[in-house]
């Protein structure tokens, strides 16, 4: 049992166990998977392998950060995968003006999407799941209009960004870590973060307390859109191609899984960035383990489903208290 590794917080009774599972289960899961791979997977312990996992997890992690904010405000953002696709198509359109301008165009595109879904949610009162579903369909379509098919991206800066490293740590992992720190700081230390949590806890109460509920909600989705766009840009750099048709497909599910498994409750009012990071790593390790042992892809899906059910079960038990 790897649980013993975290012995100091080992639970006494059932309710406590569930609470513990929600708070620390994800770290125990990551530890268990790491140990399993160290023992049973060929060539697992190598710098190159850890770099591979870090590079692959980076886009999912960045998207999950935005998703954590949306879920913390008692919402959800289903449009993230399509925003990645929109971002990659904008990158391809604007790359002629240089990679940084292309990045800015992509981020603006993502922010406009967030502004639209945020406005629908905050002002028109549309359910987040419906508003972002509309954007999910719309952005994918728009991405395909901007760029009808996969296009190879030939740019040295982007190639370096996607494949290079500093002192053995890939740029992609560094950027993801920096963004995670930034979002964690925002949630913990800024007024915006506290307002977001208050709104997620109880929107009517936040409204009565005179918090700028609408502005904060819109900001949440604008942030999520911007983060998804950055993820789309980085995924483009890694692939060295813009693929508007399949980039980001089912990304919303991976991101929601990372957030929920990481202990952020779907009922809002709480955002756990450390848990989200660990949640994304957990899913990455799970996928990698199954691929390395050459199990069919259906096994990956089933394994992910089991992890989600466990996470949601732990959260539900905690809610009962």
């Amino acid at each position, binding site marked *: 049992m790897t649980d013993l590794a975290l012995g100091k917080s080992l639970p006494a009774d059932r309710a406590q166990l569930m609470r513990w599972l929600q708070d620390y289960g994800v770290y125990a899961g990551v530890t268990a998977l790491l140990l399993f791979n160290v023992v049973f997977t*060929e*060539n697992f312990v190598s710098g190159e*392998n850890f770099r591979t996992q870090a590079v*692959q997890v980076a886009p999912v992690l960045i998207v999950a950060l935005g998703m954590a904010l949306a879920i913390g405000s008692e919402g959800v953002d289903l449009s993230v995968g399509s925003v990645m696709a929109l971002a990659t198509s904008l990158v391809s*359109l604007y790359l002629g003006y240089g990679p940084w301008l292309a990045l800015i165009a992509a981020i603006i595109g993502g922010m406009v999407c967030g502004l639209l879904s945020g406005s629908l949610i905050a*002002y028109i009162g549309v359910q987040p799941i419906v508003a972002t579903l509309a954007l999910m369909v719309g952005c994918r379509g*728009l991405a*395909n209009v901007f760029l009808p098919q996969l296009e190879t991206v030939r740019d040295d800066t982007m190639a370096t960004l996607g494949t290079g490293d500093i002192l053995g740590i890939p740029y992609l992992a560094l950027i993801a870590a920096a963004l995670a720190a930034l979002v964690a700081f925002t949630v913990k230390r800024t007024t915006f973060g506290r307002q977001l949590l208050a709104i997620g806890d109880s929107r009517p109460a936040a409204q009565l307390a005179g918090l700028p509920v609408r502005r904060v909600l819109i900001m949440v989705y604008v942030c999520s859109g911007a983060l998804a766009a950055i993820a789309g840009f980085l995924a483009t750099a890694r692939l060295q*191609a813009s693929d508007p048709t399949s980039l980001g497909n089912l990304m919303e599910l991976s991101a929601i899984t990372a957030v929920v498994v990481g202990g952020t409750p779907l009922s809002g009012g709480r955002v756990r960035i450390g848990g989200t990071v660990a949640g994304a790593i957990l899913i990455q390790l799970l996928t990698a383990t199954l691929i390395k042992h*050459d199990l069919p892809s259906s096994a990956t899906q089933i394994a992910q489903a089991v992890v989600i059910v466990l996470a949601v079960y732990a959260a539900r038990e905690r809610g009962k208290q």
Partner: protein
Amino acid sequence: MKPHARRTTARSLVAVGLAASLALAAGCAKSEDDASDTSKDSGKSQDAGQEVAEGGSGKTCAIGDYGAKKLDLKKATVGFSQSEKEANPFRIAETASIKDEAKKRGVKLLTANAQSKPDKQISDVQDLISKGADLLVIAPLNSDGWDPVIKSASAKKIPIVTIDRKINATACKDYVSFIGSDFTEQGKRAADQMIEATGGKGEVAILLGAPGNNVTTERTKGFTDRVKEKAPGLKVVFKQTGEFVREKGQSVTEQLIQSKPDISAIYAENDEMGLGAVNALKGAGKKAGDVKIVTVDGTKDAVEGIVDGWISGVVESNPRFGPLAFKTLDEFTQGKPVGQDIVIKDTEYNKDNAEAGLSKAY
């Protein structure tokens, strides 16, 4: 907050949103035109249509057997139902080829695209019939579920030719003929190329296509059967899906070369996944030719990959159905018997013909 002020801000925000989406939409209109232009160009640059290969069932179908009436193709209206969005080279080349041939022959063409939705394709075809299509060319998304179409088409005795995928129905009764590649054969030929590239020894990984797709099943079966039969020294040690997508092909290959650094070859069931594998190998510091890659499709990017030395061979899956589809319809409507099962000849690319073949690749 005053209710009035709130409404004003709400309105202005919605207005901003609408303005933004309009601006975006205006931006698209242009790029959409550009896109169709380029796809037309790629349609023109291809000269070679398809050739019929040996094989198929050998049965033929004549107009009397089907119960249709003779007509002059030049004065007829042909309806074309495409299955997937023209977002990949295969579909782009396929649609362009049908459109070009219709233009060349002066035939009126109606087109529809099912956007990967089976129910939409059924209603697309029914729409084409009600808009007055005398003949139908269908690129089916699925093999099943065609009964409603067949009912409305056979009531009017409209000849149907299906391309690239078959439908589960009776040839010469429910439809006239099927024109397409033999995917199992493509897998076998990929195995032949792989055996040549590796000398028939070593460990090979397979990047499978989308699960549950007959193209995946047949390309896998053809490959593994032929390898077992001809080169028992070549072992398939790894089989993972890359879902026909470049990004997935890259991610899976990255995992593969970490856990099996000595892998000698990769068979990718389409070009996109093969190109993803090339990215992964480059990222891992391998050199061109260290790991032999064989793919299926014949897109420009993959044939360029052969020229660069990263890919050993590509088996073509020819998407240019236009000339052969219209020739079949023409002969059939004149009263000549046509084949029920027309298997096309796919070429292949290797280091000897890649540079010359680059202009033919799509």
